[in-house]
């Protein structure tokens, strides 16, 4: 029992939107943009689990997105820096930015990224490892709430300074750019972008299913219980910190996948995702979608980014006002975001509509909706 009937319907609609409607109705440029936005949806989804369900607000999810992305980008960069491609450098075979920084041999921590399987593992493992260290240190000492948020923010700041400062190893503020091929397959062509879009979409749906599984397992109920009465859970024999660590790591892993897909689709990775500002923006995607709504995370991300793109194309000066207003409105007026609006306005309207219809057709059965969360 992974999905309730209602959720199955919702997921089907979303999957149809992502995999059928959008590819059919958008040109490849716009579709690639949607693909990029959907990679942020991974982060938003992670935040639904750890913030919405677990009550842990992290202001540093960009860290995990960034780490996943950097892992992927390092692999792609090594492939793009073959001896053949880089023969004009003083040390051929290493990434161009290393050569500019007088580094003459590949640093040890780049070595694993010569192998794709290892890279794919590290895309998940590196974010999870950092999340585990942070989570273990903080949650076993019962640090939560605002303190945790501020500390994750500081970690994001540290990581940004490090990545920017250690440019010989990381590409610095420019990031890792000019990624070209994946195992010889050119990822820059329209065709490749289309394929990557679908891979991204399928991975996202996979992560959504995983999130639903977690939500409907006893683990999900414990998360809700913990957010509500943490002490009661603790004194029911649960090691609360383990649960928090796990959900934080899970969110990190999902974000890491998003980051890797970002690097593949956009063709570069830069430290501007690791910082504080993008991390907080990603929180707003979740809040707009509804912090308790797994599917809402995707809609929230798409809506905010769509608004950002179209707003800043027409009224660039007003965009920040709009975004700021959105933050405040979501918090003050719609704490449950789109999902809340749907639950309290749209769904009842649909039900009334269906009821009228079923009155006309007495044989039709109504789907039995469970109460909104």
């Amino acid at each position: 029992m992974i999905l309730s009937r209602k959720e199955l319907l919702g997921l089907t609609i979303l999957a149809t939107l992502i995999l059928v409607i959008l590819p059919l109705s958008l040109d490849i440029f716009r579709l690639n943009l949607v693909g990029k936005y959907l990679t942020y949806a991974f982060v938003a989804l992670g935040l639904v689990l750890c913030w919405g369900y677990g009550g842990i607000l992290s202001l540093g999810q960009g860290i995990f997105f960034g780490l996943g992305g950097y892992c992927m980008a390092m692999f792609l960069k090594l492939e793009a820096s073959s001896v053949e491609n880089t023969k004009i450098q003083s040390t051929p075979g290493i990434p161009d930015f290393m050569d500019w920084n007088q580094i003459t041999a590949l640093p040890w921590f780049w070595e694993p990224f010569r192998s794709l399987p290892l890279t794919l593992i590290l895309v998940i493992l590196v974010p999870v490892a950092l999340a585990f260290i942070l989570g273990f240190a903080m949650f076993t000492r019962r640090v939560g709430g605002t303190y945790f948020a501020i500390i994750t923010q500081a970690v994001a700041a540290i990581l940004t300074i490090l990545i920017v400062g250690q440019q010989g190893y990381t590409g610095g503020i420019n990031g890792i750019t000019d990624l070209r091929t994946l195992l010889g397959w050119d990822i820059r062509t329209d065709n490749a972008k289309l394929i990557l879009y679908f891979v991204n979409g399928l991975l996202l749906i996979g992560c959504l299913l995983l999130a639903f599984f977690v939500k409907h397992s006893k683990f999900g109920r414990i998360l809700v219980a913990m957010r509500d009465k943490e002490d009661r859970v603790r004194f029911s024999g649960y090691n609360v910190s383990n649960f928090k660590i796990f959900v934080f790591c899970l969110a990190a892993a999902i974000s890491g996948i998003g980051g890797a897909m970002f690097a593949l689709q956009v063709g570069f990775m830069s430290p501007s995702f690791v910082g504080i500002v993008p991390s907080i923006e990603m929180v707003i995607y979740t809040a707009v979608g509804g912090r308790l709504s797994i599917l809402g995370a995707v809609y929230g991300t798409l809506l905010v980014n769509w608004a950002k793109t179209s707003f800043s194309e027409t009224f660039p000066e007003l965009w920040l006002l709009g975004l700021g207003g959105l933050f405040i409105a979501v918090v003050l007026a719609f704490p449950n975001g789109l999902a809340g609006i749907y639950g309290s306005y749209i769904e009842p309207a649909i039900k009334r509509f269906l009821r009228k219809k079923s009155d006309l057709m007495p044989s039709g059965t109504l789907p039995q909706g469970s109460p909104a969360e």
Partner: protein
Amino acid sequence: MNPPVTNAGIISDQMAPDFLLTVEGLTVSFDGFKAVNDLSLYVDEREIRVIVGPNGAGKTTVLDLICGKTRATSGSIKFRGQELTRMNESKIVQAGIGRKFQTPSIYDDLTVFENLEISYPKGRSVFGALAFKRDAVVRDRVFEVAEMIFLKDRLNERAEFLSHGQKQWLEIGMLLIQDPDLLMLDEPVAGMSVSERKKTAELLNKIIANRSIIVIEHDMKFVEDIAHRVTVLHQGKVLSEGSMDHVKHDPKVVEVYLGH
């Protein structure tokens, strides 16, 4: 009746096996203020012990210390010979101690069934919880407990819609489903009607068959109904201990409750 308390350290070694719970020399201080001061307490198997005392006597703190919510400054707490002062909370629960909080502490967003199910002692690890299946055994046990706590026909309601008394029962039920050897209840009948109190007393007397219970309570009528023995705390120390009758007539107790 009182166990010898003159030299607790030496005697406890011999006495420990006889008591379910042995608390000796327990002290905790908050910023210099000793909320519990050199307290000793012995609870038998299948005993209902009621702790009474004025506000600030340290009653709730004693329960906090036993279940690990607060760490003792010094002293020892032994449960079936196991030292609890160094164990973490979940391990203490797993050792067989259940604790109800002063205000009913239940999960408002979940149904009564899910409230009980969460407390069911299986799938307590992270991966256990992910793999946990709601099978017939679990279901039967939830039904069984729900019947005991008078909530059988409200299983699918969200807990937030229960009355105050029902929430108290639900929390007791959440402890019962763990089948603990020692049950600690902080004001279990607060906010209950007279008939609910009677039912609660019956419930406690029924479940005592294979466990002990420590109750903190102010309602003297209820205390008389259930208590095997009563401990009176005052300023973090045991003021008096014994049967209800004994305690009621202890001049020290009368002094504390009535005069200054």
